[in-house]
Every structure is written in C-alpha cells, then in structure tokens.
C-alpha cells in the first residue's frame, strides 16, 4: 500500500510531461498550417459567405454599406424569368456535349500513342501543346483562322468547292459550336495524358490471357481496356463537367457572349452583371447558381464513385 503513492506521482508526472509534449505538438501544428488557413479564410471562406448573403440583397457598392437592401428571394425569382440567364444556363448545358467528344478522341489517341506508334514523346507534346498554351494566345490565333471571308479555314473550304462556308464565330448558329471546337482542341491533350497514365497501370498479362482465349482487338478493348480505365474516365468526366461550368476566357476574348447572346454562358453573364452593369446582388445570385452546380456535381461524384468505378 505504501508503495502505491510514488507510482501514482510518477504516473501523473509522466502524464503531465506527455500533456506538455502534446501541447507543443498542437502548437507546432497550428503554426505550420496557419499561413494556409489565414489565406483560405480571408480569400475563400469569407467571400463565399459574402456571396451567400449578397445573393439575397440588392446593392450598388459605390453607395457604401448603407445602400444595401435586403430583397429575400427576389433575385432568384428574377433569374428564372430572365431570358438572358436562361440562355446562358442553356448554353452551359450544350457545352456538356463537348465532353464525350474530347474524351473519346483522347482515349483513342492514348491507346494509339501508348501501343501502336513510334515517337511517343513527339505525339505527347504535339497533342498537349494547346493545353499548355495560354487561352488568350490561342484564342487570338483562332479568331483569325475563323475569319469569315479571308480566314485560312474558309479559304480552304472554298477551295474544296463549298460555296457558302459558315461564318464561324460571327454567325449566331455556328458561334457556340465553334467555341466548343476550340475547347475540344484544348482539352484533348490533358485527357490523353490522364488516359496514358491509366493504360500503363493495366497488367499486360490480361491481354495475353485474352489472346490465348482468342479475343480480337475489339473484344480486348471492350472487355479489358474500357472497364479498367473507368476510374480515369470517371475522374475526367467529373472534372470536365466542372470545368465547362467555368468556361470564360475563350468567350471573353472571342465573342463577348455574342452574336446575339449565342455564346453567353454562366460565368460570362456573371461577369457582365457584376463588372459591367454593377449589379452586385443579382450577380451574387448567379454566383450561387454556379456554386450550386459545381457542388451538385461534386456531391454526385461522392455518391456514384463507389457503385460505378471498378478499382
């Protein structure tokens, strides 16, 4: 019984020392993550809270904080009835069509480059170049290539005997598809690189086993390559959807939403509302729609991932 006390004290002192060590560890932890936390809080968390609040108000920030009036759901009611907004949202949905197109081309290119051609390095760089180059520079180039009368593309089409080639970005019917075409051209490289990395994780003996069973190239593609790339495909699909909702640079430089709103998309309309028309509240409501779209896709990803993807 007498020996009990010293053991207790030793235990408590050990505990206390452990406690002070843990406190030191916590302190170090906070110090290391502090710069990141500060930046994220001030530049991301604070603004998103502000967006949520401003979306329910009407405000011209030149008038100062007193000029802010609370309007409840008015902004959102106005959005549903605003044909410009509906057009912009609809154009974003059309833009989704670019995703399967560039994914299929990227997949075919990845397989060809990975297995069936010489000069892998050259092709990787060639198809990746549009992705690495700035959108502003390539947009300036495409602007001239698409020139309705004198541009190289239409001169070529005329030379082929096509009488009335499209006016591309100057024609309301062709403007959005033209932008999507450039977008596809830019996106293929990135998707291809992800697919090539995916292909390299597929064990070769699977193909050898399939060959022994007499499988042809198409069967191998359908039964081995496509399923084992589902993880990469899913990743590309989700990030692709999210990126199309953020499309802005190409439109800002090439068409400014025109002609007659045929290329207006969510972010372009948001930009116009906020920085040209200076309607802060209404722009914040658009920002909330954009945020909801991205959030929705991200949550969908979490839900589907487990069911859909083969590891």
């Amino acid at each position: 019984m007498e020996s009990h006390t010293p053991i207790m004290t030793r235990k408590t002192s050990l505990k206390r020392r452990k406690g002070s060590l843990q406190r030191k560890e916590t302190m170090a932890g906070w110090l290391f993550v502090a710069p990141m936390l500060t930046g994220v809080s001030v530049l991301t968390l604070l603004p998103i809270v502000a967006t949520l609040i401003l979306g329910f108000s009407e405000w011209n920030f030149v008038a100062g904080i007193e000029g802010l009036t609370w309007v409840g759901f008015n902004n959102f009611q106005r959005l549903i009835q605003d044909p410009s907004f509906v057009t912009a949202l609809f154009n974003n949905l059309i833009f989704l069509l670019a995703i399967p197109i560039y994914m299929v081309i990227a997949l075919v290119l990845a397989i060809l480059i990975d297995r069936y051609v010489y000069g892998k390095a050259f092709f990787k760089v060639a198809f990746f170049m549009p992705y690495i180059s700035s959108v502003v520079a390539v947009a300036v180039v495409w602007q001239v290539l698409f020139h309705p009368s004198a541009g190289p593309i239409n001169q070529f089409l005329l030379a082929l005997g096509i009488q009335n080639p499209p006016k591309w970005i100057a024609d309301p019917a062709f403007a959005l598809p033209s932008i999507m075409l450039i977008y596809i051209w830019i996106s293929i490289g990135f998707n291809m690189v992800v697919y090539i990395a995916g292909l390299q994780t597929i064990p070769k003996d699977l193909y050898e086993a399939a060959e022994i069973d007499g499988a042809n190239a198409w069967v191998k593609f359908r039964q081995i390559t496509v399923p084992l790339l589902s993880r990469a495909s899913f990743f590309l699909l989700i990030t692709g959807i999210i990126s199309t909702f953020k499309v802005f640079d190409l439109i800002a430089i090439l068409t400014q939403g025109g002609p007659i709103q045929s290329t207006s998309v969510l972010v372009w309309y948001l930009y116009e509302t906020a920085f040209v028309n200076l309607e802060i509240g209404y722009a914040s409501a658009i920002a909330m729609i954009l945020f909801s779209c991205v959030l929705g896709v991200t949550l969908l990803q979490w839900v589907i991932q487990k069911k859909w993807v083969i590891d």
Partner: protein
Amino acid sequence: MLKIFDWKKGLLTVLLFAFSMLFLSPFLWMVSTSFKIEADVFVFPIEWIPKNWNAWNNYKEVWFGPYPFSLYYWNSIKVSVLTTLISCAVSTFAAYGFSKIRFAAGKWLFFIVLATYMIPQQAILVPQFILYRSIGLFDSHLGLILLNSFSVLGTFMLRQFFMGVHDEYIESAKIDGAGHWRIFWQIALPIVRPAVATYAILRFIWTWNDYLNPLIFLRTDHLYTIQLAIQKFTTINGEFYSLNMAAAVSGIILLLVIFIIGQKSVIDGINVGGVKG
C-alpha cells in the same frame, strides 16, 4: 525472327502524324504569320515559309513599340515567380502540418481546407473584388500574387508526398531533440523536393496563363500581365494580324520552353494533381 521495323506500326505513325498536324497547324500558322508582312497574311494557298520576311519589324513593334511587351513580360515574370515561391512555401508548410504533426484539430482543419476546393473562384469574384477595394489591394501586383498563393490543390498534392515520408525518421529526430521546424527543413523537405518542383512548374504555368484574375483585379496599363497585354494589343492593332501573331507567339514561347524542359514533371504533376486550379 527479330522484328526490326513493324510496318503496321510505321503506317499508324504516319497516319497519326498527319492527324497531329490538325493540332499543330494553328501554331505553325501563328509562327509563320508573325514573320510575314501584313499583305501576305491571307495569301492562299498558305505560304508556310514567308516569301517577304518581316520578322524583325513585327517583333520589334511588339516588344519595344508603344505597347511594349518587354514591360508586360517583366510584370508576368514578377507575378508568376513570386506567386510560385509564396504558394510553394505556404503549401509545403501546410502539407507538412497536416500530415506529419499529430494534433486534434488537424484533421478538421484539413477537412475544411479541402472542402473549399469545391468553391469555384468565379463564384467568389465579386466579394473578393469588394474586399480588395476596401483593403487597398486592388490594382496592385501584391494583390494579384496573394490571390493565387493559397492553393488547396498544391497542399493536397504535397500532402500525399509527405505521407510517404516514414514516421520513423521523424520519431528518431525527435528523440535526438529536433523540433518540427528542423525536421521539416532537414529531413522531410529534402525527400519531397521533386514533388515541390513539379508543383512549382505547374503553379508557374497556371499563373502565367491566368487571364480572369488580372482582368478583374488590375486597372492600370503598366501593371498588366502578358495575357491582358495580348488582348489589349490585339484590340488596339485590330486587323494587323502579323503583329497580333507576333504578340501571341511572344505570350506562349516561354511556357513552351519550360514545358519542353520540364515535360516529365508537368505530365506527372497533371496525373497526381489532376485539375487545373
């Protein structure tokens, strides 16, 4: 028999090369046009190699004319280099803190930081703009640099690599009396250095190519980055396409050099980090 040359593979290579020209021809056209006199720009069939050479004058106008790219290049280099340095520092500190220091709040803080990745920057532009106006960071390079310096993607990427550093190293350093600051600099950072380099290249490219942020947060002409300068230059010069192409070539050339040198890093980084951010 040993196959030296596979004819099928050779044929596919030729076909794919033809297809790759669809991707490269806009670039080739851009470069060749930037060397031409204006009257030859739309000559058809296209003169891929200019007959009337005007490269010197075009590039002189772009770099040292009334709208000098020498200045905008310097602005872009300054902004991109400083953003890259700060972003690498902030992200490696945070990545180390989140992966190698055990503290109760750590998990939660990481979850919060990661969750902010879902917020598209376009959705918070307006409040950021108002914030910048009120704290005096608007229309300054410092403001622009800070905007891209707190990358969740960078932190996430680097954290993956720090997690690969064995805890035994850190434990034994602690027993020898080293604090986290020393462990970070002398043990952990040297191990993840290649990953930091990869992230640095990506961050540099993304910052260099950033158009939206400079568009919103810069007003004064002489602060413009190269992306704004290309746009402004092409607006001012209108249909002077040979000059505009020289501007576009100038905007891309540095990145191409960096990309070709750091090709493997860039592509590996794309695969680890995924999306642009």
